[in-house]
């Protein structure tokens, strides 16, 4: 049964492979770091630019103030203009768009751009509204220009004010260039580190991937060692890990082989017990037939004795034939190419009789199969016989072993119940666990069950075991029917 995967696996980062998650995480961290660095650099740059601009503009205003105050007091328009015009040439560090000197009520005395600021007019908005309310020194930055204001104070009286606009387009352009450079370099570095991280982590994770693949195939049933060429340097961490893993795989394979060997031995032992029972079953009618033959020798001339003896001999032979036929059906041909019939299961009751009698048990047999079912006949019979023999072994004398079989909608369902002491917890857990669970290896701990479980797994069936409330164990086996029927073959010839 496959593992149920969550939906939208690719959208869930927690489901991404480690080789992808680590570079993505590294890239995200780089993006975060670069964003923070960019922000800090730009903030510092803007602070530095503003500080320099303020210092330069302060120096400019200081110079202008001292130059124009005497002329402002005398309302000497020309000298104020001349001072502004000369100063504009001296402060090369500032890109001064205009400088305007006003009287205390805000009318223009002179401006370095007289056409824009005619004499005796009010300073236009938005400069006036932004800076008129400000006192001694004020600045305002907007849309690539920097406005400053300085009041002209003489003998503690405000005699006018200087307004100036400085173009800071070059500063803003410098900020843009720094930002573009930072983004370009950070993006390049982030991508570079992400790629390097991806490649590095992928290389680092390669041994884990190899191990993971090997273990996944092991979970599917066949545990395989890591190929030698993939182990790499033996002294490395992964080299040692691979070696230990391969040792583990070898141990598991050995265990598997041992299990098979033990199962085969148990099967032979069970066969021996069956053969012994069969010999006993055959021996009884043979004894009767020998008595009948003896009666025929001595009283064969009497018709009544002759008929009775012949009937006894025939009955004995028929009994022997049934026993032999059941044995043949069980052990002769493993891969049957025909559907399972009710008779195939009923034969098992006959085969089980010696064991039932030997242990003085009662057998409750309910076979409700009402149709032929396309399942592996030999495997089902083997599995059922295994379960029945286990039930007989577990049940004390004078107790009952029950067998039920029924055709279901999609296959066959068998149930074997015993009245034994109950199945040990370890075996019960083993039956109900996935196939990868190791089988218990205690003596007579149910190698037959291991084989039944493996058969059920191979044909897509299901094996369940429960402890019954009234004592004993119930083992249920469900085998699904194959969609394609087998080719019909003649199973038995009427031979002894």
């Amino acid at each position, binding site marked *: 049964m496959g593992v149920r995967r969550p939906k939208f696996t690719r959208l869930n980062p927690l489901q991404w492979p480690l080789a992808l998650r680590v570079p993505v995480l590294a890239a995200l961290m780089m993006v975060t770091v670069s964003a923070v660095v960019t922000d800090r650099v730009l903030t510092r740059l803007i602070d530095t630019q503003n500080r320099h601009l303020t210092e330069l503009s302060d120096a400019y205003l200081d110079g202008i103030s001292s130059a124009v105050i005497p002329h402002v007091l005398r309302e000497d328009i020309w000298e104020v*203009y001349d001072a502004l015009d000369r100063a504009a040439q001296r402060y090369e560090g500032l890109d001064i768009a205009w400088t305007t000197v006003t009287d205390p009520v805000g009318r223009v005395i*002179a401006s370095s751009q007289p056409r824009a600021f005619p004499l005796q007019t009010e300073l236009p908005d938005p400069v006036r509204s932004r800076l008129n309310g400000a006192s001694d020194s004020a600045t305002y930055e907007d849309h690539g220009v920097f406005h400053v204001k300085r009041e002209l104070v003489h003998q503690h009286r405000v005699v006018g004010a200087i307004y100036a606009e400085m173009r800071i387009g070059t500063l803003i352009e410098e900020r843009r260039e720094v930002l573009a450079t930072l983004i370009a370099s950070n993006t390049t570095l982030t991508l570079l580190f992400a790629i390097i991280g991806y490649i590095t982590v992928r290389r680092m994770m390669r041994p884990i991937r190899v191990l993971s693949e090997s273990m996944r195939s092991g979970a599917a049933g066949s545990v395989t060692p890591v190929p030698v060429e993939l182990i790499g340097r033996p002294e490395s961490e992964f080299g040692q890990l691979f070696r230990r893993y391969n040792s583990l795989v070898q141990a598991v394979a050995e265990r598997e082989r041992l299990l098979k060997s033990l199962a085969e031995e148990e099967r032979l032992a069970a066969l021996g017990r069956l053969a012994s029972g069969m010999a006993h079953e055959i021996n009884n009618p043979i004894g009767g037939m020998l008595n009948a033959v003896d009666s025929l020798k001595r009283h064969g001339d009497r018709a009544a004795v002759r008929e009775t003896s012949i009937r006894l001999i025939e009955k004995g032979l028929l009994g022997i034939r049934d026993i032999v036929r059941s044995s043949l059906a069980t052990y002769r041909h493993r891969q049957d190419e025909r559907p399972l019939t009710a008779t195939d299961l009923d034969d098992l009751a006959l085969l089980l009789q010696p064991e039932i009698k030997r242990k003085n048990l009662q057998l409750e047999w309910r076979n409700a199969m009402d149709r032929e079912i396309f399942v592996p006949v030999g495997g089902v019979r083997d599995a059922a016989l295994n379960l029945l023999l286990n039930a007989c072994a577990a049940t004390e004398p004078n107790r009952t072993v029950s067998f039920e079989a029924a055709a279901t909608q999609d296959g066959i369902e068998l149930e074997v119940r015993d009245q034994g002491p109950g199945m040990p917890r370890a075996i019960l857990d083993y039956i109900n666990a996935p196939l990868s669970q190791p089988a218990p290896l205690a003596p007579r701990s149910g190698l037959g069950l291991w084989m039944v479980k493996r058969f059920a797994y191979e044909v897509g069936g299901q094996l369940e075991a429960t402890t019954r409330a009234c004592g004993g164990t119930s083992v249920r086996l469900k085998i699904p029917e194959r969609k394609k029927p087998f080719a019909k073959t003649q199973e038995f010839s009427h031979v002894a």
Partner: protein
Amino acid sequence: MPPFCALTRRQLLTAAPAAAVASIAGPVQAATRGIKFGLTPVFLSNDLELLDQLRTFLARRTGLEVVLVQRRTYEEITSLLISGQLTAAWICGYPFVSYREELALVAVPVWRGQPLYRSYLIVDADRHASSLDDLKGDVHAFSDPNSNSGYLVTRAALAKRQWRPEEFFRHSFFTYGHRNVVRAVASGLAQSGSVDGYVWEVISEIEPELTGRTRVLERSELLGFPPVACPRRSQDTPETLALKRALLDMNSDPLGTEVLKELRLDGFSDAKPSVFDGIAAKLALVRSLG
């Protein structure tokens, strides 16, 4: 080296303190056997080399020590001259006629063959105006309140129209320099200006990009060129006579010729005071208006 009015701003800035040192800060000290020659900034800018050439020429030709004295306004130089603190001064025709009783002519510069010049009324090069009448409500730049071409001529023209400058113009101011008038109009600080025609023409040769931003709206009639005058009471002193000879013979001296070339002048003449009658008439007109 360019003549007056052709200084760069850098030269102007460096020359200003030097000129201040060269000039006499307080009352001019009387010197024995020397010439104190006053110069107005209206007429002559602070071209130190030119000033030095002029001083050297005068000293060599007169054999006397020559000190050049500069002040910001005509009024200051005129006051120094009338009070006898200067041997002579290159002033304007307007103060000459104003103080005709106190002053006497030493020599009159000759420009383009005659001791005459004109006053120009200038406006912005792109301005649509055809006469002084179109300039009503302007911000107007005058040169100096004691300048003929930079004030009196326009003042008289307005007087003819029964206007005073403060009524006709929205606002007017003095730049105390003809070149500054050109700068004021060219920059848009003033919408019109009154300027010495001789100075405007010389600037147009040296700084055509500056005068190119202005246009001569009106030219006055020919008037007496700004003269070199002396106090009447000292017109016959040896220093004054020596100065007069030096100026009148200036175009016969190599250094004098060099100075005249820089000044774009032909020489100096012994013109009669009647040359300034036109200016006197304008002054009378203005005074009659009250």
